[in-house]
């Protein structure tokens, strides 16, 4: 069933084409948990920022594939860096 009462029948042929009701989506505020904290990634911080020396504490591998893509914008794959780092650490 259509979620909107869009013109389907006789009303389409009438001046009532614009008289339509619409179901609004539930309004859900979200607090998504970004579990692959980019904040721990030394490449996350701007160079020479007060926190850029965090690079010293994370000596494991640079993100090899996805690092650098859209570093500021929301990423749908936030934890891949950690996965690669763990994997590389394991391979060593």
């Amino acid at each position: 069933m259509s979620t909107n009462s869009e013109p389907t029948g006789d009303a389409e042929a009438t001046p009532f084409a614009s008289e339509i009701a619409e179901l609004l989506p539930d309004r859900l505020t979200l607090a998504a948990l970004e579990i692959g904290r980019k904040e721990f990634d030394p490449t996350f911080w701007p160079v020479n920022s007060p926190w850029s020396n965090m690079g010293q504490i994370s000596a494991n591998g640079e993100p090899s594939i996805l690092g650098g893509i859209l570093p500021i914008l929301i990423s749908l794959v936030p934890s891949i860096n950690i996965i690669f780092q763990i994997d590389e650490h394991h391979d060593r």
Partner: protein
Amino acid sequence: MTLPAPARPRRADGLVLLGAFAGSGLDRPVELARRADGQVVTLTTLLADILAAADGTRDADGIAAEVAARSGRAVSGADVALLIVERLRPLGLVTTPGEPVPAPRAAARFTLAGRRTLLRAPVVGRLSAVLAVMFRPPVIAGALLALAVADGWALRRHSVAASAAAVLATPSLMVVIVALTLCGALVHECGHAAACRYGGATPGVIGFGMYLVWPAFFTDVTDSYRLSRAGRLRTDLGGIYFNGLYALALAGALALTHAQVLVTAIVLAHLDGARQLAPFVRLDGYYIVADLAGVPDLFSRMGPALRHALPRRHNRDSRHDQDGQHCPRPVPAGLTGLTRRARLLVTAWALIAAPTILVNLVVLVASAPFVLPRTVRAVRTQLAPAGPAIGDGHVLAAAADAVAAAVVALPAAGMVFVLFLLARTVLRTLREWPALARRGRSPRSTSSSGATGPSGATSPSGSTGRSGSTGRSGGPGRAGGEGCHDPLGAAEVHPGNLETP
């Protein structure tokens, strides 16, 4: 088979007419109604007037007379019956005795999946009533000032790098950080609920689910649709404000305990708040843009906005009428009825959000073959020490390993979930493609221009001097300026926000 209109139409049990949608980005008034199950519906004024009059005591002619008395709109009983059958009853707004009442729910793109309730609505109501005091202007001013002072003190006196290093080096501290992050997310949601309550709306449940690739807490603030634009924006920003209050509380705890892990927690609380401002998916930034534009569901308008904004292959833009006058490009259905300001905002949002989402989806698909097998190996690696740790009685270390394994596994699980949704959407589109193509080829059967109602009555919209399609257009079924025929046809001319998601 379409059922005839009931003899004495009656609005559905529990249906509440909420009044005008305030701060709307539409160029004509829109009313709100809420069904007993909480589903909110927007209605044009005529439909709202019919619903208000449909109390079970009047027949269609009586409702038409009542509508005319209320609003001055000339409408016949047959018109009312038609609108009830085709517009109101399918959405469960009017009941027919002896027939089941449909209760369709709005479909929405990029929304939360697998919802589970954490705090029931009455609990959230009591909690938000207590916390609503935090939105009094003097309290906000004081809290923000205190936060600025506390942040300055915490970041000057303590080293974020040293704190983060300690967290990375100590598994138990990572568990603490995860717990504090979870707590912060719940506080964030309480902020939305409290802001919703402060504005006069009733928040629903607080719960959790899966949002794309992230686990997420949520608050149902659907009732905030009936707030003013300022009230809705306050609800949108309430979570980030409470992130700040949470950071303030953490700074207080830091002052008392000198636990360095709290420095990292403070920074993360702020970063979580800032991240919420991203407008591309349904985080707080999305709702802020939607409320600034006055458009409830931006995603439903993304396609029309892109089609309108992007150049076309065919030279359809340079259209002229018979007098050689340039006709503006027709506005697609999803954007008709919007004010110019709202249309510009929606288009700007779509032009930024669509490529961002597309790039992320492409990255997601391209990286899946690499990420998924590596995730399996990484989870095994994380879990390997947990067994011996439990055997040695190191429960905390084992718990840290388990948390780490979950941290690694969840994004991949979310990735699989998104890939599933993508595949399902593609399959559905392919399945429905023949029907869509047929519909696209068939000529528009009718136009509302000059059409009469089912009883031969004059157009109610015409009788009041209002356009049947948009306030901008020259008349029903026309868009884009005088002399330009709307190729979309009247059947696709919506009153603004009325597009099937």
